[in-house]
C-alpha cells in the first residue's frame, strides 16, 4: 500500500485535485485511474489551516519507490507541523515538496499520532458511465431495485411477512400501491411455507422475491432452501430450475437485537452448492439475478445488510462476499490485493468457528502463501450465541480490527 502526501496551502479543492493528479503522474507513471483494486480514498485533514491530501494508491511492488514514498509520507507529516514546507502557491509548495524528498528519514515526530487522529472523509467522484446517478441508502436502493424489477418483469411478485405496508426495514415502501395487491402481498407467519411457496412460483416461471423478516427466522425454511431450491436444477438435469427465486433476509446486529434479531447465518448457506449468498451490491445483484438466465446460475439467495453495520468505518478490511460464481471474481480481487499488500484481515459478525472468514482465509493462503507477510487475521464474533447485554463486547468493531491490523503490521 502506498501513501502519497501532498502538502498544499489552498482551499480550492478542484485545484488541489489538479495538482494531485499532476503529482500522481509525476511519481507513478504506471498509475492509471481505473486499475485500483484495493480502494481509493482521499482524506483531507483540516488542522492548522493547512490542507493535506492523502491518497492511497496501489502501484506495482517497486520496493525502492515504496520506501521512498513511505519516507516522503513521514517527512511531510512532520513537515506539516513544523511548517517546513509552507508555500504560498501550488507550484511553490510542490517544488518545495519535491526538493525535500529524501530517502533517509530520521526520527518520527510525536505529533504524527495527533495528525492521524482527525480526518475528513472525501468520497470518490460519482461514476458517470451508467448515466444519471442518485445517492441512496441501502434500503432505498433495495426498494428501487425491486421497483425496477416489478416494472420491467410482469411476472415478478414480492411476498413475505408485512411487506405490504413497506416492510419492517422499509424495503418495499410504496410498491403495493404502485403495482397492486396481487403482486405485492403479505403471507401468514410461516417461513417454511413462504420459501416453499416461492420455490414453486419460481419453478413455474414467475420471478419470486420472498422476504424473511429477520435472518434469524430463516431456519424453519432451511430445508426448503438447501434441499429443494438449491438442488432443483441439478437433480432435474436442468429440466426445471428455480433460478428466478430471490430470498431476502436482513441479517446482522442492530444494536439491541439480542439472540434472535442479530444473527448472521450466511455461513450455513454458503456451504450449500446451488445457491448464491451475497451481502453487498444488493441492487446490482437483484437486477442481474432477474435478468440473467445463463447457467450455471442456480437459485439465488440475496441477503442484505442493515445500514447500521458496526464494521463500516474502516475500509481496509475485506468484508466478505460469498457465492458460487461471483466468488471466483471476487477472490481474484482479493488475491491481487494481497499480492500487493501482503496482509489480509477478514471480519464478520458471525461466530469465528466455521464462519465465512475461514473459507476466505484458506483459499487466499492456498493462492498467495508466499506473498503473505503475516497470518491472515480473522476478526469475528465469539463462539457464543449472540448476547443480549454484552453486544458491544461481542461485535468485531473498529477497535478490534485496528488492534488486529497493528499486530499484522508488526508481525
Amino acid at each position, binding site marked *: 500500500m502506498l501513501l502519497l502526501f501532498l502538502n498544499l496551502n489552498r482551499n480550492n479543492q478542484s485545484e488541489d485535485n489538479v495538482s494531485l493528479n499532476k503529482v500522481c503522474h509525476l511519481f507513478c507513471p504506471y498509475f492509471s485511474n481505473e486499475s485500483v483494486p484495493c480502494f481509493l480514498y482521499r482524506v483531507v485533514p483540516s488542522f492548522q489551516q493547512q490542507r493535506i491530501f492523502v491518497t492511497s494508491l496501489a502501484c506495482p511492488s517497486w520496493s525502492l519507490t515504496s520506501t521512498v514514498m513511505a519516507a516522503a509520507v513521514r517527512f511531510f507529516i512532520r513537515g506539516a507541523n513544523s511548517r517546513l514546507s509552507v508555500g504560498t502557491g501550488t507550484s511553490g509548495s510542490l517544488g518545495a515538496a519535491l526538493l525535500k524528498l529524501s530517502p533517509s528519514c530520521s526520527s518520527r515526530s510525536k505529533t504524527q499520532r495527533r495528525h492521524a487522529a482527525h480526518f475528513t472523509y472525501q468520497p470518490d467522484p460519482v461514476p458517470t458511465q451508467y448515466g444519471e446517478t442518485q445517492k441512496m441508502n441501502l434500503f432505498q436502493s433495495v426498494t428501487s431495485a425491486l421497483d425496477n424489477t416489478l416494472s420491467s418483469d410482469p411476472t415478478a411478485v414480492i411476498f413475505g*411477512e*408485512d411487506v405490504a*405496508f413497506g416492510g419492517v426495514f422499509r424495503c418495499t415502501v410504496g410498491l403495493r400501491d404502485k403495482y397492486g395487491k396481487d403482486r405485492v402481498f*403479505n403471507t*401468514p*407467519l*410461516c417461513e*417454511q*411455507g413462504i420459501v416453499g411457496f416461492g420455490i414453486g412460483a419460481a419453478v413455474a416461471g414467475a420471478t419470486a422475491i420472498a422476504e424473511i423478516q429477520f435472518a*434469524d*427466522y430463516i*431456519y*424453519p425454511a432451511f430445508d426448503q432452501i438447501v434441499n429443494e431450491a438449491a438442488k432443483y436444477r441439478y437433480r432435474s438435469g436442468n429440466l426445471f430450475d428455480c433460478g428466478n427465486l430471490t430470498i431476502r433476509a436482513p441479517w446482522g446486529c442492530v*444494536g*439491541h*437485537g*439480542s*439472540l*434472535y*434479531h442479530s444473527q448472521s447465518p450466511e455461513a450455513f448457506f454458503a456451504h450449500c452448492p446451488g445457491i448464491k449468498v451475497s451481502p453487498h451490491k444488493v441492487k446490482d445483484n437483484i437486477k442481474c439475478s432477474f435478468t440473467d438466465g445463463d447457467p450455471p446460475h442456480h437459485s439465488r439467495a440475496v441477503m442484505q445488510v442493515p445500514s447500521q453495520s458496526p464494521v463500516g468505518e474502516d475500509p481496509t478490511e475485506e468484508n466478505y462476499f460469498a457465492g458460487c460464481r461471483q466468488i471466483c471474481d471476487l477472490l481474484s480481487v482479493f488475491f491481487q490485493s494481497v499480492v500487493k499488500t501482503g496482509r489480509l484481515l477478514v471480519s464478520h459478525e458471525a461466530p*469465528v*468457528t466455521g464462519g465465512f472468514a475461514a473459507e476466505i482465509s484458506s483459499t487466499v493462503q492456498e493462492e498467495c502463501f508466499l506473498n503473505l507477510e503475516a*497470518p491472515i*487475521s*480473522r*476478526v*469475528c*464474533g*465469539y*463462539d*457464543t*450465541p449472540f*448476547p*443480549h*447485554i*454484552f453486544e458491544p*463486547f*461481542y461485535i*468485531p468493531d473498529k477497535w*478490534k480490527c485496528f*488492534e*488486529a491490523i497493528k*499486530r499484522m503490521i508488526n508481525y
Partner: protein
Amino acid sequence: MLTNISSLLRAYAQKSGAAAAVSMRSYSDFTPQATFEIKKCDLHKLDEAPATEVVMTREEGLKYYHIMQTIRRMELKADQLYKQKIIRGFCHLYDGQEACAVGIEAAINMSDHLITAYRAHGYTYTRGGTVKKIMAELTGRRGGIAKGKGGSMHMYCKNFYGGNGIVGAQVPLGAGVALACKYQGNNELCVCLYGDGAANQGQIFETYNMASLWKLPVIFICENNRYGMGTSVERAAASTDYYKRGEFIPGLRVDGMDVLCVREATRFAAEHCRSGKGPILMELQTYRYHGHSMSDPGISYRTRDEIQEVRSKSDPISLLKDRLLSNNMASVEELKVIDVEVRKEIEDAAQFATTDPEPPLDELCNHMFSNNPPVEVRGTNPWAKLKSVS
C-alpha cells in the same frame, strides 16, 4: 387536649388513611363468596362444557386483583423505562391480557408446567418470578431472572420454560414436556401457549398430530389478541376459528378478558388432560392495548377508538373490580390499598433494575455447554480466548 387528639388522629390518617378507614369496617361486612354467571364457551368435538355458574371467594377475588394489577403496573413501568432507554432491545407488553395469565394459573398447580412465546412477562410473574427479578432481566442486570443474559423474551423459572423468541417454536417443546409428565406418571400437565400469528406455523400442526397420537397431557392455548404483529386475523388465517384448528383435538373458545371464564375453562381442560383423554385446545379471545412490541405504536393497523372501546367495556381488571364491588366483596378503599402496595413494589423493582450492576464480562461465554473443566472459546482475535464455565 382536643387539639392533641385531633393532631394524633390526623397524623395517623395521613400515614395510612385508607388503612385507617378499612380498619374501622370489620371483615364480616363483606360477602365471603358469590356466584357469578359467565359466558358460555364454544365447543368443538366436546360433549360437556365448562360450568357457566362459578363461585369466587373474597380471598380469591382480591388475589386475582392483586396479581392482575401487578402485571398491569409492571408492564406500564416497562413501557416507561423503555422510553427512557433504560430497557433496550425488544419488549412485548402484556397489558390487556392479564386475565389469561391469572386465570390459567388459578386453575393449575405450581407443579404443572407452562411454556409460552415472547409475551411472557405476565406468565413469569404468575409462575413464581418476582417483579424485581423480571425488571432486572429487562434491563439486563445481574439480578435478573436469567442473570441478565436473556432479556425480555427469555425469562424462565421453575416449571416455566420461557420466554421463546422464534414464533411457534415453543409448541413442540410443550408437547415434549407433556410427554415427560406422562412418562414420569406424576399427574402433571403442560400448558402450551401461542398466538394467533403462530397458529399458522407448520410446527403447530405437527405437534397437534403427535400430541393426539400419543395422548399427551398438554393444553394448547391460542391467545387470540386479533393481531399478529400488524396483521389482523382475517388477513392472516383462512379459518379464524382457532379452537377448531386442531381438528381431531377437542376445542374450546373462551372469553379471555374475564378471569373467571379463563379459570373455569382451564379447570375443565386440566381435568380432561389429567384423566388421560389426551390434548385439548383452548382459544382465549383477548386483546392487547400496546402494539406488538415497543417499536410498534399499535395504531397503524387499528383505530384508537377500538382500543378505547375494549378498554372501557372489557378491561379485565375493571371487570373484576366491578364484580367485587357490586357483590360487596371488597371496598373501594381496600382495592386502593392494594393499588398503592403494587405501585410501591413496582417502584422498588424499577429502582433495583436501574441500579443493579450489569453481569460481569466473564458471563459472555458461560453456560454454553455442560463441562467440568472450563472450555476455551475462540473469539474475535486468535490470541484472545475466553473461558466458558458451566
